[in-house]
């Protein structure tokens, strides 16, 4: 076991898979000699060479098309979109092409493609770099959307994503890349896609969240514990498909829930979770489900991030509001 940051765990997952499966290819803008703009692919080009780890011309749609074509030749492409804010350039190749290949071919072809991309706010990037676009992809049938909240999960989920026979959008929150270290096993291990984790057990209220907001929610839960509110924190790990069983079981226990997302409110994952709760556990609730999100503006310019992003205080307040309903 070694202590790794999340980005090191991500590199480690790719290295593990490049070693164990010769069909795995890693490509994107600046991923080869440069090791990626965040160094997520550091050392992979040196170990595996140009055949396996290569730069592409600067064109996101082309990267998506390339991945689909390589998948048709039985490769297992791991493509990088340098910043998720650039993904609109690849929207057709991801949402219309990769996501639909299995469906369009009646199951004859499939796209075992992992679409890795840094996303999320709080690191003061130029505009259109940080963004929370995960909801758009969760709405695309045929895709899975995975968002790890820590180094251990990042490695296990990325290995699972690479081995998955369907396209997986794997979103790496930029703020988590180097914010803390964790014990990460050296060997390969998988964390099942579509399964949430109870990040903190509690009996009074379920906070359901994912990505960087898991850490924020855990801090809020510590705070609330001091005020005698015992929160359970669910780390979804995958936002599509949702682990509705874990969510439902938790609510049946706590009878209260708050959903937390870093993304804007409109048509977000939080709304989908609330709808699932409505379908599956409404009568177990003692209060309406609370929702903490960012406001519905465009993702903010860097100087406004701190006031725009949801924080620990927002969660604490919403939990209290829900408990006191």
């Amino acid at each position, binding site marked *: 076991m070694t202590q790794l940051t999340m980005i090191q765990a991500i590199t480690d997952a790719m290295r593990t898979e490049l070693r164990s499966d010769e069909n795995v290819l890693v490509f994107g803008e600046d991923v080869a000699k440069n090791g990626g703009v965040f160094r997520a692919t550091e050392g992979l080009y040196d170990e595996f060479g140009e*055949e396996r780890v290569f730069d*592409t*011309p600067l*064109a996101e*749609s*082309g990267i*998506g*098309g*390339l*991945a*689909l*074509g*390589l*998948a*048709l*030749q*039985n*490769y297992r492409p791991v493509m990088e979109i340098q910043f998720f804010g650039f993904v609109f350039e690849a929207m*057709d*190749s991801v949402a*219309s*092409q990769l996501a639909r290949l*299995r*469906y*369009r*071919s*009646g*199951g*004859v*072809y*499939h796209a075992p493609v992992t679409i890795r991309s840094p996303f999320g706010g709080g690191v003061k990037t130029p505009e259109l770099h940080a963004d929370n676009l995960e909801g758009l992809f969760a709405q695309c*049938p*045929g895709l*899975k959307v995975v968002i790890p909240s820590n180094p251990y999960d990042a490695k296990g989920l990325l290995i699972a994503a690479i081995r*998955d*026979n*369907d396209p997986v959008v794997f979103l790496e929150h930029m703020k988590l890349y180097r914010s803390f270290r964790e014990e990460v096993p050296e060997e390969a291990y998988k964390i099942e896609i*579509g399964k949430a984790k109870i990040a903190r057990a509690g009996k009074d209220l379920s906070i359901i969240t994912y990505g960087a907001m898991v850490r924020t929610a855990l801090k809020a839960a510590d705070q609330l514990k001091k005020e005698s509110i015992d929160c359970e924190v669910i780390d979804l790990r995958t936002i599509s*498909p*949702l*682990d*509705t*069983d874990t969510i439902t079981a938790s609510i049946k226990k706590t009878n209260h829930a708050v959903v937390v997302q870093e993304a804007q409110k409109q048509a977000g994952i939080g709304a989908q979770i609330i709808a699932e709760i409505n379908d599956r556990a409404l009568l177990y609730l003692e209060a309406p489900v609370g929702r903490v999100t960012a406001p519905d503006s465009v993702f903010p310019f860097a100087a406004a991030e701190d006031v725009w992003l949801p924080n620990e205080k927002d969660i604490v307040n919403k939990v209290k509001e829900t408990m006191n309903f």
Partner: protein
Amino acid sequence: MNYSGQIENFFPTLRILDSQGHVVNDQKNPEMTNDQLRELMRRMVYTRIWDQRALSLNRQGRLGFYAPVAGQEASMVASEFAMDKKDWLLPSYRDIPQLVWHGLPLYKAFLYSRGHFEGGQYPKELNAVMPQIIIGAQCTQTAGVALGLKKRGKSQVAFCYFGDGATSQGDFYEAMNFAGVYKAPAIFICQNNRFAISVPVEKQTAAETLAQKAAAAGINGIRVDGMDPLAVYAAAKEARDHALAGKGPTLIETLTYRYGPHTMAGDDPTRYRTEELTGEWEKKDPLIRFRLYLEQLGLWSHDDEEQAAEQAKADVAKALKQADGVPKQKVTDLLGNMYEKPTQNIKEQLKEYSTREGDQR
């Protein structure tokens, strides 16, 4: 630098047969056996008849989405004729003839036209992707397929088909650029039929030719008379040899014309082009010139023509019957092909739809 007026020198139009079937460029005349020449003619006649039948079946409501091909037979069939069975084909929605000649059973093409999912279930031995609807999307995928073939060390290439309109798309440039950088064995065939639905090629680009767009990507570009099957075949063959030699991709612009509407879904070509123009192109018809050429060589007769036409009609009737016999499509069929293993919600929906009245539509 002002290129105006000079482009034609860089991208001259390759023509081997004139409209009367006379060889005008013997030096470039491709080596083909008599059997190959006859087979190419047979396929073009067959395709023309099948296209006519498809139009009428569409009007009767027995076929769905259909994009007519008459006029483009040389461009389509003669280029596919240069492919090896193992080569990969990435077509657009009009390129059904190439798919069929590459090995797609005709009834599958009919199922695709009807919007039945089995129309996309290709036989294992067929190296082809379903027709692309998004203009140009197949181009970037072709770069990927070709790179994959190169990485696997296979002696196979990828053929990609699209129209003049696609050359305005970013994907078209990205694809040539990617394939060029990787020296991937890709053949990009732009069938310039002069109209992207209604917009004439002059309003698509200020470039004098579409072939010249290859120059910016640093790949080979060639312009051919798309009504001349020998020129199309020669260009495709040369591009294939070039790619297999590791020299990278080629863009082929075929100058052609569709006699009919864009699709059978209500397009009226008289709104955007004159009958005179269509008449001029009909005089260049690929079947007429190839028939004249083969007759001169004593390789084609009236009986051959009849036989090819009758075969097409019989095959269409048989394929239609086969398509009619395929079970109706169910919502559960669609849900079942979303993921390798159904997700929780899809599991629930599979259950819901499998017991639902009227699921089969």
